[in-house]
């Protein structure tokens, strides 16, 4: 399997994503510079976390205008799977690949900790390693992860099974305390309509071994590789 990781000025989870993908794929992904206008042949595009362009103006806004993103959007429209994590998720909403927007966390602070996530919909490709309704643990680390969408979009996301993950208690309850950033409906990650683009604030690439404190992230990438193969 071939994968690419897009690297923007200010990306800082690009290496972590590479490590996670390499662990699951057995070969290294292509690291693609934002200024390139063409993508190498690829079965998966991954947009990493970090602070592209310092998160200045709006998180992801400037990266969304990078030459490479036009190509990423085109490939996504053609069905190539895209996983966009944290800053990647913000970039994906800025380009319109995913609906909604990510606002400043409700309590104004950066938050870095493990969170529990309810797997909220079926999508073999991305969450085939888990069961719907299962609770998994990934870390979050962001300042602007407060998901917002207008009511119409929100109910569409809910009704069409486009919500990938919701912040939850370890028992799967969707409480306010379990929500680290004020996201509407506790939303932590969403799919596009076609289901081939996943954006999520939490970082599966950070929990890929026992030494790091958990393996739910490894399951995520193993499944991705297995299903895309």
């Amino acid at each position, binding site marked *: 399997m071939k994968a690419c990781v897009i690297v923007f000025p200010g990306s800082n989870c690009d290496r972590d994503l590479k490590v996670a993908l390499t662990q699951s794929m057995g070969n290294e992904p292509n690291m693609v510079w934002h200024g390139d206008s063409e993508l190498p042949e690829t079965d998966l595009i991954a947009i990493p976390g970090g602070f592209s362009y310092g998160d200045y103006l709006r998180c992801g806004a400037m990266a969304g205008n990078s030459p490479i993103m036009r190509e990423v959007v085109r490939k996504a429209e053609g069905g190539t799977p895209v996983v966009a994590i944290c800053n990647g998720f913000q970039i994906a909403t800025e380009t319109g690949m995913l609906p909604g927007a990510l606002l400043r966390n409700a309590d104004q602070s950066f938050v870095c900790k493990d969170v529990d996530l309810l797997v909220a919909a079926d999508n073999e490709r991305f969450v085939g390693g888990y069961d719907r309704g299962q609770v998994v643990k990934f870390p979050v680390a962001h300042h602007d992860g407060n998901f917002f969408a*207008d009511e119409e979009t929100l109910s569409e996301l809910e009704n069409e099974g486009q919500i990938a993950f919701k912040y939850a208690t370890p028992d799967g309850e969707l409480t306010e305390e379990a929500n680290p950033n004020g996201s509407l409906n506790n939303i932590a990650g969403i799919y596009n309509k076609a289901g081939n683009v996943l954006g999520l604030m939490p970082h599966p690439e950070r929990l890929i071994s026992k030494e790091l404190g958990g393996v739910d992230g490894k399951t995520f990438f193993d499944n991705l590789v297995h299903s895309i193969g």
Partner: protein
Amino acid sequence: MKARVHISLKNGVLDPQGKAISNSLHGLGFDSVLDARQGKTIELDLKDMSKEQAEKEVDRMCLQLLANTVIENYSIEVID
């Protein structure tokens, strides 16, 4: 010439910063504050051109980069 772009959150979009500001103001005893909203201003120095041209140009900048119209409104003021 100069242009100023005001960007504010659309009605109905939760404004965490504004909310935090009004909470803090209340905490400081400013009870006269009913609500607060936070927006952005971007000031641009531009090469000389006609006012209309400048407005058009800045509007394109807003659509492409400066504002996110999913959540934000913007208005443009050209000053010369």
